[in-house]
């Protein structure tokens, strides 16, 4: 008698159960797709901010894009982690004056392709470095590509390492004895 009273409730629950399981499976799949889009968006932003911070000569912002064990390798040597990278950049390039506006050059970042694999990712992108010509026009001075290894650190995507390859003029980023960048760009780009 008592059992019979609860039977409709139990029946309704049993009938709803497979629906719940399918629903949560679909939600989990959707959640994964949304996460993938959010990851890609955040990684693209880091690729853009890398150039923006260099243009603004904001080396604290620039260094914050690197992971705790993120490695910077280039013409100034090698540094690991944000604090060491910032110190190295400021030592070699100096701190900009307050209210600095860069009217001489900028990075154009494009053709970004991101591959996310769980908590690591690879991003490949192209850059063009524009400088001001003698007649005050934007002049494409360097063209190249970046290959970045990313890692998710406390929910934020950070650069583990970046290899910069020159396309025009050609510079093999994997060659430890990199030829120096054009003399005209000394002091204004990451060597």
């Amino acid at each position, binding site marked *: 008698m008592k059992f019979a009273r609860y039977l409709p409730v139990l029946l309704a629950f049993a009938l709803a159960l497979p629906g719940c399981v399918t629903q949560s499976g679909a*939600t989990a799949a*959707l*959640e994964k797709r*949304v996460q993938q*889009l*959010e990851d890609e*968006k955040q990684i693209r*932003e880091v690729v*853009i*901010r890398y*150039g*923006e911070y260099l*243009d*603004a000569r904001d080396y604290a912002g620039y260094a914050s894009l690197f992971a705790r064990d993120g490695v910077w390798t280039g013409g100034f040597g090698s540094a690991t982690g944000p604090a060491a990278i910032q110190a190295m950049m400021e030592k070699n390039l100096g701190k900009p004056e307050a209210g*600095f*506006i*860069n*009217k*001489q*050059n*900028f*990075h*154009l*970042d*494009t053709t970004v392709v991101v591959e996310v694999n769980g908590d690591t990712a690879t991003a490949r992108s192209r850059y063009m470095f*524009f400088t001001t010509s003698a007649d005050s*026009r*934007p*002049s*494409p001075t360097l063209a190249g590509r970046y290959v970045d290894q990313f890692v998710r650190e406390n929910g934020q995507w950070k650069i583990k390492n970046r290899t910069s390859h020159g396309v025009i003029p050609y510079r093999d980023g994997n060659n430890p004895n990199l030829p120096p960048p054009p003399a005209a760009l000394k002091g204004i780009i990451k060597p």
Partner: protein
Amino acid sequence: MTRWVAALATLIGFFAGPALVAAATVTPPSLEARIQRIDDRMAIEQLLMEYGRALDNRDFAAFAALFTEDGEWMGAQGSYHGPKEIQESMEKMFTAAAADIPKGKNFHLLTNVIIELQGDRATASSKFIFYKMNGAKPEAAVAGRYEDRLVRVGGAWKFQQRLALPPG
């Protein structure tokens, strides 16, 4: 009996209350809210691209419609307010330069887009290069950055303010 229920309710409230408050502050955004943010971001990127497309097509009415009623365009040429003034000013600017940059002989290259969303408002920062023809070759004539304040009006994102600035 009633006293017991009241005591129990107080007890539950005592323990569950702070837990509910804590849960409310750390609850991750819903899937729907996350998708809305992706939608907003894509709609704003589209708005930023439409800006260049409308100017390159010399469609000044479509261009002006990208701004709110109190929208402002500000650049080296001056500061213009509201769709009507913005439309007339851009038309005048491009008509005056028609000999140097005729329609179909230039384009805006728009890139480096960073968007910050705050509900129905947003800010965006991006880069532009204005290419025109030098004989048979495209030549970068002007480069700079845009700083935008955007607002959602009737479900559509619009420019409330666009500043065209030097690079950096």
